[in-house]
């Protein structure tokens, strides 16, 4: 093989590997399975969901910083997987309390699953994003990749880096047995319901239409298309930004570029280097007479 053919072939190989890896990863992404529907117009902010989540998952209590009047603790953490937050109206608007149940959104195209190098974060056949703590090595990539900043690290030793990721698992130890999630079970006003995602999608749209009729013009359903389709759908009474949500948010583009192009290309380049070295060695061994080498 001469140099020109070699370059041609390696270029073609690179192209094929890029395209094929792109399609392999793209396949099978239609959102199916279960979902939770949270209706912010029904939520009374009682925090029963938050309590029952802690109770079922045996998560220790956290001290609060006393700086917020309602939210306690301030944000999701490795020990708080469901949190009721209070979104007050922006200045100049009619004062209104908006409660927001913050938990894992169980994205169909989940950034945590994409970046997890151990397979600890994975998509469950029932649609939600499950987690295998035994596989986690505490690298923390998920905590930095999630567009909703949901996973957190439980760091047990700063020096050695010993840590485990932690986040809502859709009660993976209850739901496959036919039970509801702890948060849904606890909700006294049915602001949280669980069921087939397609049915909840319809239900959510009906509720949004009803709210709009009542005068909540900005009411909307959050999660139909975000991150490939969320398995935690939300009926919002105001625009997503009022809940600190980004409409149409997707997996960070850099993560797609990294996982779908840079990593396969890197493997290809390293493979070609090894093959090239072996080929070069075979050729030079034939061409050189060792007696003449100085």
């Amino acid at each position, binding site marked *: 093989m001469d*140099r020109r053919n070699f370059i041609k072939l390696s270029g073609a190989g690179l192209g094929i590997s890029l395209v094929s890896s792109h399609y392999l990863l793209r396949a099978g992404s239609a959102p199916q399975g279960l979902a939770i529907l949270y209706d912010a117009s029904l939520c009374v902010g009682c925090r029963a969901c938050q309590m029952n989540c802690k109770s079922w998952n045996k998560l220790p209590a956290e001290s609060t910083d006393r700086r917020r009047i309602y939210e306690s603790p301030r944000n999701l953490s490795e020990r708080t997987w469901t949190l009721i937050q209070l979104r007050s109206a922006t200045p100049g608007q009619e004062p209104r309390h908006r409660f927001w149940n913050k938990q894992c959104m169980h994205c169909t195209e989940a950034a945590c699953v994409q*970046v997890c*190098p*151990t*397979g*600890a974060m994975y998509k469950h056949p029932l649609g939600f994003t499950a987690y295998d703590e*035994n*596989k*986690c*090595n*505490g*690298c*923390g*990539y998920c*905590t*930095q*990749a999630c567009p909703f*900043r949901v996973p957190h*690290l439980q760091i047990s030793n700063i020096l*050695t*880096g*010993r840590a485990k990721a932690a986040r809502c698992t859709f009660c993976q130890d209850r739901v496959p047995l036919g039970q509801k999630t702890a948060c849904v079970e606890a909700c006294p006003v049915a602001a949280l319901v669980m069921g087939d995602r397609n049915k909840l999608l319809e239900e959510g749209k009906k509720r949004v239409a009803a709210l709009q009729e009542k005068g909540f013009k900005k009411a909307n359903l959050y999660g139909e298309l975000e991150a490939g389709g969320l398995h935690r759908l939300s009926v919002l009474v105001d625009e997503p930004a009022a809940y600190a949500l980004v409409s149409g948010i997707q997996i*960070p583009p*850099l*993560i797609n*570029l*990294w996982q779908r192009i*840079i*990593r396969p290309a*890197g*493997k290809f*380049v*390293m493979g070609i*280097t*090894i093959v090239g*070295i072996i080929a*070069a*060695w075979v*050729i*030079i*061994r034939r*061409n*050189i007479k*060792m007696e003449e*080498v*100085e």
Partner: protein
Amino acid sequence: MNGQAQESGYIQIRWIPKYTFIERFLHWVHTASFIPLVVTGLVLYLPLLQPLAQGEAGLWMRLIHRLAAILFIAEPVLYGIVQPRRLWLNIKEFGLDRDDLGWVKNAFGYYVLGRHDDMPPQGRYNTGEKINGLVMIVSWAAFVITGLIMWFGKGIVSAEVFRWMVVLHDITMIVAVCMFLVHLYLAVAHPLMWAALVSMRFGVTSASYAAEHHAKWYYGPKRARELYQAKKKPTR
């Protein structure tokens, strides 16, 4: 014969110094940190090695990666402290001239096909060694900056910055590993480069090897060019 006497039955090799003890020692410290770093890093990259990345094994991989990183960071810094003049001498060798272009044109024929005569004379480091050196310096800086930010910056820098650090660390690894594979091959397996491993073990190189591979260093630039022209003429 380039200061090398061949008498009846045996070859006498005249050795000339090339690397100091500290340089050789730190070269192997670098090797002893780089290889564990690559291995413990690749467990996050190659699906075949994924079981090593999981759970308790993965925690050990991360710990070893960080311990090796300390050596990896310290080694060039130590060199600069212990032998700053040698470091400066080596850096000065990185200048480029027309012979580097000649090297690029002839590299394939020289390294793969074994054609000696067209290769222009090279300095203490040939163009390939300069490329290797530059890749090592740049990738060292990239590894250290992105690695330290990932190690200590989680939660301090923004998630966006952190993600870039992970990706840049990956890209740097791909480039550095490819360069390392070529470096390893030339050092241990390429039949023409037999003196490379000797000089990194014992600090010396053979005079005839230096004359053949590093003529501008051995003879000086002017004499090296004259010899090169004289060698080239009859073939043209």
